[in-house]
C-alpha cells in the first residue's frame, strides 16, 4: 500500500523526532534505521539522507548498513508479506517445494513483489517453530505442516 503525501509528511516528522531523541546514544544508526524501516516499510533515499545529515555521516555509510542487513529494504513491499521458512528443519521436510509452489502461484520469485503490490515473498532462515515444519507465515498468520498442494487455498484467503 503506497503512502499518501500526507502520511509521508507525518511519518517524516516522527522520524525526525525519533532521531532527535536518540542521536546522542552510543551507536544510534541501526535503531534509527530500524525505526524508519518499520514506519515506512522501507528505506527511501530521502529518509537515508535525512538520517545521514542528522547524524553527520555520509549517506554512503547509511546505504552500506542498509544493504548489509537482510531486514532493510530499499523498495516498498507488498500488502502481504509471505515468509517461507528455508531453515534446516523445514528444508529436510520439504520447505523448498513449498517455496517453489508459492513462487509458481504468484509468478514471482523470492524477494520480489507482485505487480499489483499484493504479495511479497521472502525466503526466511528459520522462523523458530521447527515443530511445525515446513512453515510459512503470511503477515502474522502462521501455517505449519505444509505441503505444496495446500498453497493455492491459503493464498486465496488474501
Amino acid at each position, binding site marked *: 500500500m503506497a503512502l499518501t503525501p500526507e502520511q509521508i509528511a507525518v511519518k517524516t516528522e516522527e522520524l525526525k523526532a525519533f532521531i532527535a531523541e536518540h542521536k546522542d546514544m552510543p551507536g544510534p544508526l*541501526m535503531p534509527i534505521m530500524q525505526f524508519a524501516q518499520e514506519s515506512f516499510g522501507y528505506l527511501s533515499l530521502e529518509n537515508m539522507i535525512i538520517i545521514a545529515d542528522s547524524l553527520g555521516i555520509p549517506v554512503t555509510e547509511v546505504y552500506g548498513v542498509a544493504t548489509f*542487513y537482510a531486514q532493510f529494504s530499499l523498495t516498498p513491499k507488498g500488502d502481504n508479506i509471505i515468509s517461507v521458512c528455508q531453515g534446516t528443519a523445514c528444508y529436510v*521436510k520439504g520447505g523448498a517445494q513449498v517455496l517453489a509452489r508459492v513462487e509458481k502461484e504468484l509468478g514471482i520469485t523470492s524477494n520480489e513483489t507482485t505487480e499489483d503490490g499484493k504479495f511479497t515473498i521472502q525466503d526466511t*532462515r528459520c522462523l*523458530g517453530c521447527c515443530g*511445525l515444519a515446513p512453515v510459512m507465515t503470511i503477515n502474522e498468520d502462521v501455517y505449519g505442516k505444509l505441503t505444496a498442494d495446500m498453497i493455492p487455498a491459503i493464498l486465496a484467503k488474501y
Partner: protein
Amino acid sequence: MTLEELKRIKAETLPQISMRHTHTVENETVYKHQVLICGGTGCTSSGSNKLIDEFYAQIKAHGIDNEVQIVRTGCFGLCELGPIVIVYPEGVFYAQCSIENVKRIVEEHIIGGNVIDDLVYHEKTTGEVKEKLSDMQFYKKQNRVALRNCGVVDPEKIEDYIAFDGYQALAKVVNEMTPEQVIDVMLDSGLRGRGGAGFPTGLKWKFASGNRGNVKKYVCCNGDEGDPGAFMDRSVLEGDPHSLIEAMAIAGYVIGADQGYVYVRAEYPIAVKRLTIAINEARKMGLLGKNIFGSGFDFDMEIRLGAGAFVCGEETALMTSIEGHRGEPRPRPPFPAVKGVFGKPTVLNNVETYANIPQIILNGAEWFKSIGTEKSKGTKVFALGGKIVNTGLVEVPMGTTVREIIFDIGGGIPNGKKFKAAQTGGPSGGCIPASLLDTPVDYDSLMAIGSMMGSGGLIVMDEDNCMVDIAKFFLEFTVDESCGKCTPCREGTKRMLEILTKITDGKGEDGDIEKLEELANTIKTSSLCGLGQTAPNPVLSTLRYFRDEYEAHVYEKRCPAGCCKNLLQVVIDPDKCKGCSLCSKKCPVGAISGQIKSPFVIDQSKCIKCGVCISSCKFGAIYKK
C-alpha cells in the same frame, strides 16, 4: 530493594505457585488449580493465545475465576505436540489442545476432578497414557538447569522468578563476594561457552576484569541465534528472561561494568517483548539501576536488535553491529576482553551460558561439576528438529549419547524410516552417521568426529535425505551470509557451491571431489572469522562419512537417496507391470508406451520425472531410482 524485601516477595509468592513443583496445594486461600499454557513461539504459532482467551471465558462462565489461575509460560519443550496445556496441582499434560477441548478440561478435569484420558498425552511409541510430565519418556532423561524455569514461571511476572530463588545469586555476589571469588567459582565450575566454541566462561571474565573501576567496560549477551533450526536461546529469552538479566548483572559486577547490551535477532518478536518487560520490571524493583542491593554497584542494560545477518553471531561482528556499522568481523587479537564494544573491554557470552550462572552461584561449583563429563560440565540444551518424532527442546547432561537423545528422548524417526545422520552445529558443524550414534555429546567428542557442539541445533535426517544435497544447502546458506570482507570465504565458498551444484545436477567430473576437499581446507585455514573457518565443515564431514554418495553422484550419475531430481530415473519393473496402460494415459508428456498386457517402458529422454505414473500405478510397479 534489599535482601529482606527480596525474601518477603519470595515468601508471599511461593505458596501461590509452589504446586507447580510439589503438586500439592499448600495454601487453601489461594488458587486451587493453575492452568499453564505454553506461550513459546512454537505453541503460539499453533494457536495457544486463543486457548488462553477460551480458558478465561470458560472459568468465568463457570464462576471459578477466583479458584483457577491461567498462566502463560515459556516453552515446555515438546513443540511437536503444541499447543500444550498443563493442569496443576496434578501436573496433567494435555497435548495438541484444541479450542473445543478447553470446555472439557474445565468441566471434566478442573470441576469434575477427572483426568480426561483421550486428551492426555499418549506415548507415541507404545501408546501408553502418560498423565504427568515426569512420567513421559521425553522428559525422563532430561536435566533442566538452564531451562529450569521455562514452562514453570510466568516470564512477564518478576515475582514468579523471585519465588524460585531469583536474584538471590546477585544479592549474594554483590554483598558477600569479591569479584575474584566469583571468578574462582566460575573457573572451578568448569562452565564453558554454550554458543559453540566452548571457551571457559571464568577465563573470559578473568581476562576482562583487570583495571576495574578505572575504565568503562561493557557486558554483552549474544542472542543472535542465527543457526537455522536452533531455538535454545529464544526459549530462554521467552521463558525465563530474568535469569539472563541476573547473570549479566553478576558479570557486570565481576568485571566492573555498569552497562550491558543484549543483542537479539529481530526475528524473535516474542522474545524481545518479554525481555523488554523483564528489564522494565527489574528496573522498577531496583534490581537494575543504581546501588543494587545497597552495595554501591550500578548496572543497567538495553536491547539492541539484529537486522538479519548470520555473521553477527560472530563476536567481533556482533560488537561492530551494536556500534551501528555493517556487521563485519575484525581480526583477533585484540580480543573483546581488551577491546570490545566502542573500543572498551567487553565480556560477551551467549544466552544459555548466562542462564546457567545464577544456579552455579547459588548451588556452588561442586554441584555443577557433578553433572556432565570430565571436560564438559553441566548440561546442554538441544533443539531437535527434522525427521524426528518429538521435535522440540531438550536439556541433557553433557555426555548423554546421540542415540539417547534421538531415540529415547526424541522418540526416533517417524514413518518407520531408517536413521541416516544427525547434523549438529548448523552451517558450521557436521554430520554424525549411524555408526557413531553412541558418541557422547560433549565438546571434545563431537570435535573429534568432525562435528561440533555448536549452539545446539540437532537436525535429524533419514534415508530420503541426500547428504550431497544437505551439504549444498549449508553452502548456499554460507554463500548468502558471507559478509564478503575476506577473500577465502567470499570467493571460496562460492566456488565450492558451484562444484556441489554441478555434482547434484549430474554434471560432476572426475577430480571434483578432490577439488572440493582442497578448497575446503584452504578456506578453513585462511578465513578471517569463525564463519569462514567453519563454513566447509558440512562438506568435509559429509565427505568423511558419506563419500560413497558423492561418488555415486559423480561417477554413476545416481542419487542413492532418490532426492536430486536431475539424477533420478523413473522406471517400470517389468516383473510387476501388468500392462494395463493406465500410466501411459496419465503421463503428461507421452513418455510411456507399450503393448496391452505386456510390460510398458518409459522413454527417459521424454520423462520429466513428475511422478504421476508412480502414484497412478495400482501394482506398485513404477519407482524412482
